[in-house]
């Protein structure tokens, strides 16, 4: 006999097949309830007291603003780092479209400068692989090094809601490179060997906290 299955008839046939299976005597758990897609971000600060990314009070549920804070008492003249984020996390921007914001600690203009348009060493961009590269530096040796135990600059992370990341997913941030300009940059009176040794940025390690999609 030839049968023609209509949609309704097809569903009825599936129900019958299930019934037949049940009669075999094997139990099966119900399928897990789908996890809702995350809509917000949560960030837990790292425990480190060294270089670290700390949540700023201006953060919102959908945009986490992170301060770069250094070890208290360590004086520096600038810092730069590359921070990688997984898919689902997006780096945000501040005024002027830059992905980094000056926290006002470093003296970015030349000593005594009155030119409001003077270029400052504040740069940032997003490289391939969701890699944020930012830097903020003093450029005048007449400006003193600054205590790094406070917020030096800010970056922002937002959730890419289009990615459909399930709530509860950890979004680990990893710092691939980080360097500072130390307080001692040598003096014009130093010999060349000494200067050559001091004309190096110092590697640092920046601790990141836990970023979670919620």
């Amino acid at each position, binding site marked *: 006999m030839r049968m023609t299955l209509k949609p309704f008839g097809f569903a009825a046939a599936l129900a019958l097949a299930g019934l037949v299976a049940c009669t075999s005597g094997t139990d099966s758990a119900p399928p897990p309830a789908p996890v809702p897609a995350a809509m917000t971000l949560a960030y837990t600060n790292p425990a480190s007291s060294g270089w670290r990314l700390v949540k700023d009070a201006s953060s919102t549920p959908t945009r986490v603003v992170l301060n770069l804070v250094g070890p208290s008492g360590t004086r520096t003249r600038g810092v730069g780092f590359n921070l990688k984020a997984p898919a689902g996390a997006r780096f945000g921007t501040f005024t002027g*479209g830059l992905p980094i914001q000056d926290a006002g600690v470093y003296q970015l203009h030349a000593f005594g400068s009155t030119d409001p348009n003077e270029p400052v*060493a504040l740069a940032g*961009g997003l490289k391939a692989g969701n890699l944020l*590269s930012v*830097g903020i530096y003093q*450029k*005048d040796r007449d400006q003193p090094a600054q205590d790094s135990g406070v917020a030096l600059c800010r970056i922002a992370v937002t959730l890419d809601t289009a990615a459909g990341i399930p709530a509860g997913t950890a979004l680990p941030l990893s710092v691939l490179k980080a*360097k500072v*300009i130390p307080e001692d940059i040598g003096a014009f009176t130093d010999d060349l060997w000494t200067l050559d040794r001091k*004309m190096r940025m110092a590697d640092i390690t920046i601790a990141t906290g836990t970023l979670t999609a919620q």
Partner: protein
Amino acid sequence: MTFERSRRLPTLVFALALGAATAWAGTSPRFPAPAQIAFHRSQQTLRAGLAQDHLQARRASLGLGSLEGFRTAAVSTNALGEAIVRLDHTFDGHRVLGSQAVARVPLGGAVEASTDAVLKGVALSGQPLLTPATATAIALRHLAPRGPMEATPRVEQVVFPASFLGGPATVTDPVTGKASLDRHRTVHARMASPYVWAFEVRTRLANKVDGRKELTYHIDARTGAILRVVDEVRHQAVPATATGRGQYSGTVEIPSARMADGTYALYDPTRGTQPNPTLQSFTPDESGWSATGLQTWYEQNDAQGNNTWMSYLFQGNATNAWGDGLPFTAYGDEGGPNGQTMGVDAMHGMAWTWDFFQNVLGRAGMDGKGTSVFAQVGCTGTYSRENAAWSNWDQGMALGTGTPGGPGAFTDFDVIAHEMTHGVTGSTVGFLNTAGFEEAGLDEGTSDFFAQMAKAYAAAGDPYASTLPASGADWTIGAGVFNGTPLRWMNKPSLDLRSPDAWYHGIHYLDGHYSSGVLNRALYYLANGAPADASHPAYSPFLPQGMTGIGYEKTARIWYMAVSEILVSGGSGQLTFLHAREAARRAALYLYGEGSTGWGWDSPASRAVENAFGAVNVGLNYGEAPRTQVRFADFRNADWIERHHADSALGGSRQYFPMGERVRPMAQVLNNANTAVTWTVGGRSLFNGAEQMVHKGGVINADGTWTTPTDLGWFALTATSVADPRQSAEGRAFIVNLDADSDLEQDAVDMGALSYSWYLTNALNPAHSVFNAPWVDDGDVATFTDAVLATWWVR
């Protein structure tokens, strides 16, 4: 030039006196008839008084003190009927040597005065200690006449500026033409202050023993030192007409001079009344030569065509017949008949070009002051052999020999006229002629255009004509030199495969000899009209309906007014083709402004100017709606680096990118909803020999991004509008290496290394500059941030 206008006198007085003034309302209302010129001349003295009053009243604004003033030195009337008044600057009633103002006073008495040559800061201490008689005695002791003086020396107390202090003087051997130090006239005086009192003692000696001498001395009125000795002998040579056989001009009559020894020289004492600044360094001898007049010299080469750095006047010719009419090949014998051929062509071109400017445009020589001009033919060397050049410093030209089997001598008519026009623009608008500025094209185009006008003037054959013929220009440059193939085609510049037919954003990167195509074609259209036939070589897609030209005469007067009276560059590089268009429009309205709405608002001539420039994409055609435009976006928009960094000399339309990265160049499309562009690497400015290989690189990807090359330096990119492919823009992409910390990664951390170097700038810096420069400065900082933003922008 600094012009200031004074009050106007009531015009009524002059209009009544002129009687027929209203008869000016013809096609050239600004050029009075000869009878009216006579009236203007009768007003010279009155107008000179107005000029003197005007300048006296301006003393304070000129920075002159209460002891200073002006005194009329000379007055004449030009072709426009304006009084030209030269006024000596005086200090305590005495003339300041070399300090003069020149005023122009037209009908109505509105004075325009040029005060650029008025010396500022004149200050003197004390009074003369010498008497005029003592100063005269010092001069005569130096003159050492052996026979009687012809006249009593004339003495005048003057203020002598240190800048006129004499120095080494030379004398030319009349037989060999070689120059040597003239010890008799060499002065090694020192002055106690920048300005001193002096006595000017003019002597005149003429007797059988001493011959003829006119030496003018300046004697320090306090120390008795001789400050300067100048030979004042002028024009002893007798004007003559020579027969010449030129390679380009054929058999022609050219001006020459019969010298004291009865031989002839390619020396025209009748054109140019002021001594040439370079020839002035030679001492007039008994041959009759002086530093005034048009002159044709030749460079002496050896038999292999190598420069010997010796130059001679074409002279010593007993028959006054010059040249053999053949292409130059006789290296080592430049003064012979074959070399003379170059001299014939040069003198032919010089005389006609001089007459064109003088008789048609009323200009006294290239600099407007009647300063003499010379041509030096037979030039060789890497640069000079196949080239021609004008020097404002020299007020003269260097003209190459060409190469046997290659280009001929650079003495064809349009080459000569082109170079001489540089002398006109050099002393008026003062274009900056450097690639990187649009006005380089304006400079070269102006020379090309007036070369055509001079060519037409010469072709008409009347050296006294005050108007231009309706035809006679061929609108090409250099065809003779290059064996029939022009160097430039003015009606279709792109035939040379380098010049554009129309303006585009970024044209300033072209050498002026190519960007000139825009002005050349606009002036061609203005004079001749533009065809509506798309198959015609001169057809412009920007003016498909074509236009009617206004003729040579009007076009020449309009453009001459634009460059001599309206446009101002002063070597600044600030002028664009759009400025040129506006200047031409203003000149058209000033000279030919009669329209349906009255005078000076809108006229057929001004509409023709708008259409002629619109046809080369400079502005719009008359009544046209805004066009699509493409501009290579400049991230900086004239910010700090544009104002401060040396690299900014090239002007805008630049973007900075890191090497070997995928970047997105930016272009703006204006006046069109479709802002899409297609990108190509390279541009017109690269069609310049080997540079094409160096500055064209990287790959344009399918999504419009550009994978930058790994070579540093500048590269060219061209963006073309998808909606209107006629419109494009060329820009410079500067490829820099951001990896300042040498870890083989370009990122923001590198800016730390850059800052590190900044700390040590100008001292022990190891050169982390993104410009590959030996120092780091704010230019690097700005460039770094721009390149990062342009490349790794955050979306």
